[in-house]
């Protein structure tokens, strides 16, 4: 394995806007995260904001050229475990600058790439971790990864941000006191190991998973251990760091293992997405607070696998979270939902349910969209409006740009016009058609759209934090809760229809569907 230890400079800074600093430990805040690689210029990301998830290294349903065009793809998170199928993991073989960016096709001048061993959304049971390894999932079975291996992969791949190994149990809870203690101790040891200085090179930007499971005491203990002044062997190892926290850039809060620990059931389903409706956001808040309470406030707080914008708002409001992953919106694209909501609540929205609440998006599988030629979302009033009163979203599905270049295949081919013109939006009717005909393009367009809606939601949140007083911000949040359905009924409906269409293939499909429609 080519193992260059020299690492280009890559520094991450986080600035919290002056106005937000004076407030309390957990109050909502806006900030800017700024990454400088090789002194080349910054990638700035506003917070609260969103990071995009990947599966096997790719943003599901997007092509590489769409990474460049889609403004929502700014920070992508790469779970590394699928690459363990090949030894050595293939991304470690990539040469040149920014190897992980290069291997996966994320433009290094535009994208921040972070890397963790495990997929933070995967709640499936895996065999226990050991004293010197973590069990990771691949399609070829479970692989053991040692702290040494993990560090060597990170050194070879040079991601902008790395999450060190953490001992998070993925077997049925409740966990004993002993298990929790072991979890904290191992996570501490592995973080210490990871923070060893790298000879002749810039240190990693490290985000640490805050361990401790569902126990307030354990979570507090882990966070406090990060701040302790180190002695003896540990101190020698991480010199010149005085405490582990000095080597940490951000704090990561993974909700999937937390929900598992709280619910006491393990997800034996093969689907890596778990949502236990029994676990409420209010059950989680005190646990997250106990982790963050001892720690300095100026570092980035990242939450993975938040289940809804409602939960995101709560976590911003009550804990001051800075970053969320987009898993929820990406999943919506998988199951045929075009998101349509805004913050603060706007005048235009989706249909209202009998309980008076609006859905967060449109289940485009629904037959009612077959002849609906409107653009995907209503909520963009005030954005660029082309036809006067029709609100338009600036994503690749609602405002498709004509190509700037066309490949010329012979000397006779006519050259392309300039390109870059905004075309007509793709309609709900077209997406409905694509979903029912199993066309992959449906999901590409929905990913582009849903990420844009989530982005706009966070822009609205930032704006509100900046310009509104605490009380007005809280009022806007309660309006959001009043207006939009928190139960996500549209998700379960869409998921059911998606499942049916997934199954519906082969001869006689149309007849069977017709028969079903007439019996309804």
């Amino acid at each position, binding site marked *: 394995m080519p193992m260059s230890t020299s690492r280009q400079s890559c520094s991450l800074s986080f600035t919290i806007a002056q106005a937000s600093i004076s407030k309390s430990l957990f109050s909502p805040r806006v900030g800017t995260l700024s990454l400088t690689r090789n002194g080349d210029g910054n990638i700035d990301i506003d917070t609260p904001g969103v990071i995009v998830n990947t599966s096997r290294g790719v943003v599901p349903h997007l092509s*590489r050229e769409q990474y460049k065009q889609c403004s929502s793809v700014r920070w992508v998170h790469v779970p590394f475990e699928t690459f363990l199928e090949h030894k050595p993991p293939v991304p470690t073989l990539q040469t040149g600058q920014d190897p992980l960016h290069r291997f996966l*096709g994320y433009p290094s001048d535009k994208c921040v790439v972070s890397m963790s061993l495990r997929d933070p959304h995967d709640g499936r049971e895996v065999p226990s971790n050991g004293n010197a390894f973590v069990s990771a999932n691949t399609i070829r079975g479970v692989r053991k990864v040692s702290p040494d291996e993990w560090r060597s992969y990170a050194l070879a791949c040079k991601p902008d941000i790395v999450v060190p190994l953490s001992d998070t149990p993925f077997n049925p809870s409740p966990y004993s006191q002993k298990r929790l203690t072991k979890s904290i101790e191992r996570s501490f040891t592995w973080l210490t190991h990871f923070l060893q200085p790298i000879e002749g090179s810039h240190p990693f930007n490290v985000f640490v998973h805050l361990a401790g499971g569902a126990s307030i005491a354990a979570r507090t203990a882990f966070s406090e251990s990060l701040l302790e002044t180190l002695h003896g062997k540990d101190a020698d190892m991480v010199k010149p760091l005085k405490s582990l926290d000095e080597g940490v850039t951000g704090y990561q809060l993974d909700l999937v293992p937390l929900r598992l620990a709280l619910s006491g059931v393990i997800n034996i389903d093969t689907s890596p997405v778990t949502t236990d409706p029994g676990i409420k956001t209010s059950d989680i808040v005190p646990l997250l607070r106990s982790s963050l309470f001892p720690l300095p406030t100026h570092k980035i707080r990242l939450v993975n696998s938040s289940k809804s914008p409602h939960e995101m708002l709560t976590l911003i409001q009550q804990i001051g979270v800075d970053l969320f992953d987009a898993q929820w919106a990406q999943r919506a694209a998988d199951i045929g939902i075009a998101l349509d909501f805004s913050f603060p609540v706007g005048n235009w929205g989706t249909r209202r349910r009998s309980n008076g609440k609006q859905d967060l998006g449109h289940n485009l599988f629904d037959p009612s969209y077959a002849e609906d030629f409107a653009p995907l979302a209503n909520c963009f009033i005030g954005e660029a409006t082309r036809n006067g009163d029709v609100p338009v979203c600036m994503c*690749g599905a609602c405002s*498709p740009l004509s190509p700037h270049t066309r490949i010329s*295949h012979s000397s*006779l*081919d006519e050259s392309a016009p300039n390109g870059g013109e905004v075309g007509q939006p793709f309609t709900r*009717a077209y997406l409905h058609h694509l979903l029912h005909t199993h*066309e992959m*393009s449906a999901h590409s367009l929905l990913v582009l759209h849903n990420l844009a809606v989530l982005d706009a939601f966070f822009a609205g949140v930032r704006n509100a934090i900046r310009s509104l007083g605490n009380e007005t911000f809280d009022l806007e949040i309660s309006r959001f809760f009043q207006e939009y359905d928190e139960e996500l009924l549209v998700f379960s409906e869409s998921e059911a229809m998606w499942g049916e269409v997934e199954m519906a293939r082969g001869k006689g499909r149309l007849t069977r569907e017709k028969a079903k429609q007439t019996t309804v």
Partner: protein
Amino acid sequence: MQFEVIAKCHTTRARVSRMNLTHGVTMLPTFMPVATQAAIKGLTPQQVEALGVTLILNNTYHLNLRPGMKVLNQAGGAHKFQGWHRNLLTDSGGFQLVSLSKFTTITEEGALFLSPFTGEPTMLTPEESISIQHSIGADIIMQLDDVVSSLTTGPRVAEAMERSVRWLDRCIKYHEGSGKKSTQNLFAIVQGGLDPHLRHQCLDAMIQRKNDISGYAIGGLSGGEEKDVFWRIIKLCADKLPEDRPRYSMGIGFAEGRNFLLHLLVCVALGVDMADCVFPTRTARFGVALTHAGPLNLKLSKHEADMNPIDKSCPCPTCTDGTSRAYLHHIVTHETAAAHAVTIHNITFQAQVMGGARDAILSGTFPEYLRSFFAGYFGDGGYPEWCVNALRSVGVDLLQDHPVNLIPGSGAKWEYAN
């Protein structure tokens, strides 16, 4: 339609022409990617256009079932519905009736089939087919023809050919009266099975109707027939069809997609201008990338650590971005993004092969182009005998500077694990 032949090959029957339709210019010879259900699988129309594609195909049968004519009429046609601003061609829907339904009965009135929605007998008449294609609004529309398998023998072949001519007249009449003639162009489909006599009869009848027809398709060769028979029929038709009309070889490689490339080049040499095939896009979804050196099966473990792109010299976004074979191996058949990446490459590759043919015909080097393509594609592994025979018939000897063995059969090339 404005159709103009720009250059002809001095040796073969190949030619370069310019076809100006309602949605822009398409240079011929060309290959048409297939967007059966109003989408090239996985790509947006903008992505397809960026690849330099100017003409795609939609299937009438499928669009008629879903989304249905009501939706297409409301959308203002298939171009607007799918956001495609360049040229579009639709078939008549007749072929799928035969290939997808066991119960289709052909009567003089039209094709009687069991509706896949209601199970009730439904009639697709030539008028109905054209009417549906008018709703779709494609730049090129096809007549409804009476399709029989190329393996059919006996009086049914003659009957189908004669009926196709009669149906052509009904299509012409309906199209004339529709007011769509200025924006949509009707193509006739030459039938007659594998019988040269019947083909000649059909050609004579259809050429008589030339003034009402914008172009000609060669139908009834959908695989299964002997390759040596296949190219002889193509040659017979292409030789006889009028100079000043585009010639479209329909559904070649339907049964044996892997030979599509060879069919394509041989057909061009025989004088064909257009061809469609689902193969480049379908095979991409299974992880097979097309290259000048033969297909590359990215699922094979030999690619798992290969940091090279599919083809360093390929201008497609996948290759120019440096997407490695190792990366594609990792995601192929697991992520839709793999299908997108390889589809982008394969469509570009096909378009490059055809663009290269246009340039070679223009510069008088088409025979050399064919020889170097075969040499690169097959190396010393031997050439399919039918290709050698077909190209000899138009004055190109593939073996001239490259004496290799002749392989009987279809000549499909595949990449194996070692």
